[in-house]
């Protein structure tokens, strides 16, 4: 490069990394630190912020809707996370190897993840429509008592979990890559020794991709919290009777509707605790399995 004559090769490499690092600082690290501190201020985005000590925490944590939103987030997003990762793993295992037409079948599993979340949410709103929705037409034809799904407080949460199970494309691809990293000789040897399908999954594939599954689990839990927001806004808006009212909705209403960004930030501290735990666990997992250091297996 004629424009950078003095730099060493190493420094030029660091220059290539500069946009990435600057982006992470500006778009992740700085906002995280800001929201962390904003919890101690009263701020409506117009007048200058005013220090109010712990008031925002009292406001947020005594709000009944806040408690409800945390509960709903747990049951709607965090508990189904293992289910989604397991689904991604089993799907990846099913389409791992052998047979023709694997590529189009794999693409079909990924296809729902290609859809815009808003379009997919609308599609499910139609599928789960109590009167005309195709799912309930089938259930009624089969003689079942079809539930009202998203319109019923008891069924709205399972329905949202069901919807989220279709968009597991990233987890599917990561599991597939991890499974394909396992030397096929291992699987062949186990097969010759008479290990059945389930035994080979349980004793061979699962332990070998366990660190990847753990990473996926953390990521899925945190990402799903945000992803579910789009689906919820287009389907239930937090209803019926606040059955699907999650933490992102509380933060959105407090911050962008009521303009009390301090209270919203105080509520976010729950998320920081969650993300902090995940990063800590991630660090321990990475150290235990030496992720990022071993030669052949980078895995993620």
């Amino acid at each position, binding site marked *: 490069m004629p424009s950078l004559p003095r730099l060493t090769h190493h420094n030029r490499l660091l220059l290539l990394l500069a946009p*990435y690092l600057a982006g992470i600082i500006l778009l992740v690290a700085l906002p995280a630190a800001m929201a962390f501190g904003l919890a101690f201020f009263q701020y409506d985005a117009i007048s200058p912020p005013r220090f109010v000590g712990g008031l925002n925490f009292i406001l947020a944590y005594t709000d009944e809707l806040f408690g409800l939103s945390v509960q709903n987030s747990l049951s709607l997003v965090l508990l189904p996370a293992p289910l989604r990762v397991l689904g991604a793993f089993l799907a990846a295992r099913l389409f791992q*190897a*052998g047979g023709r037409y694997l590529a189009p079948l794999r693409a*079909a599993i990924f296809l729902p993840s290609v859809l815009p979340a808003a379009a997919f949410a609308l599609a499910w709103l139609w599928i789960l429509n109590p009167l005309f929705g195709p799912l309930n037409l089938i259930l009624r034809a089969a003689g079942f008592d079809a539930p009202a799904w998203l319109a019923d407080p008891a069924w709205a949460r399972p329905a949202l979990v069901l919807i989220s199970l279709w968009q597991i494309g990233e987890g599917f691809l990561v599991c597939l890559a991890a499974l394909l990293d396992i030397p096929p000789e291992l699987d062949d040897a186990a097969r010759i020794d008479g290990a059945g*399908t389930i035994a080979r999954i349980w004793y061979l594939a699962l332990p070998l991709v366990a660190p990847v599954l753990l990473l996926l689990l953390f990521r899925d839990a*945190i990402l799903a919290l945000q992803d579910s927001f789009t689906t919820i806004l287009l389907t239930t808006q937090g209803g019926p009777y606040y059955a699907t009212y999650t933490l992102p909705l509380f933060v959105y209403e407090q911050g962008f509707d009521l303009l009390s960004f301090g209270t919203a930030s105080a509520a976010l501290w729950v998320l920081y605790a969650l993300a902090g735990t995940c990063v800590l666990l991630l660090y321990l997992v990475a150290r235990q399995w030496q992720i990022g250091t071993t030669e052949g297996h980078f895995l993620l």
Partner: protein
Amino acid sequence: MKRDSRELRGRLGRWRDRRRARLLARLLVTLLFLLPLAWMVIASLYPPGQPLPQQLGRLPGLPTGRNFLRIWSLVPMGRYTLNSLLVCALATPLSLIVSSWAGFAISQLSRASQRRWVLLSLAALMAPGVALWPARFFIYRELGWIDTIWALIAPAWMGTSPFFVLMFFRAFRRIPQAIYESARLDGAGVLIIWRRVALPMVRPTAIAVALLAFIHYWGDYLSPLLYLSSDRLTTLPVALQLIQQMSRSDWPLLMAAAVWATLIPVSLFVLAQPVFRGVSQPEET
């Protein structure tokens, strides 16, 4: 001898049964994942204004494409589509450049530095997006990005997702280091090596990242919702919500809008398939 052949036939039969069971399971799972999409498309072809069937197997009339025309008379769908395309046209190449630069540079660093960057990327992956909404709003405001296209493409400055950087890192480190070394000895600079040597060798990864980035920006509903204040730059996901608010129970119309918003990413995804075929299944039988 006779027993041997019988046993062999038995094992062959079991093997065939297992293969058949696996094929059946595969087809069933595939069908399950395609079903929502199929239902969406079918409902979009229902003739407008007809009562919806309440029984299985009944159709409200012959399939028609009229619903697609009805969206265009309801909202300026052309402008929304162009807005979406513009966002993707800017954000996709930018993501590709930033993430491949970072992935390439990391793959050239020492092992200890590699580990640090991978851990940093993984930690950034864990950052909860919701926690960043309010503060990003203030940062964009300071930069004058609110209600401009920059607010919509901002994540592209960090390569959209550390996941993309890790994908590139994974691809670049598989290329033998000697190839880079020889290019360096020939006097090629870092940018030349990246553009002429490294990038052409990881074409499938680059296309996958470009596709994923496109899909991300095309489907992004949050950024317009949080950081736009006028409808000048409204993109398709927000348009879907507008249409939903206008005619809540006109299902054929809503499904037609959903199909329209889905058409381009799905087409690109299908078109890109041949590129991935060779990579994802190296030990195909």
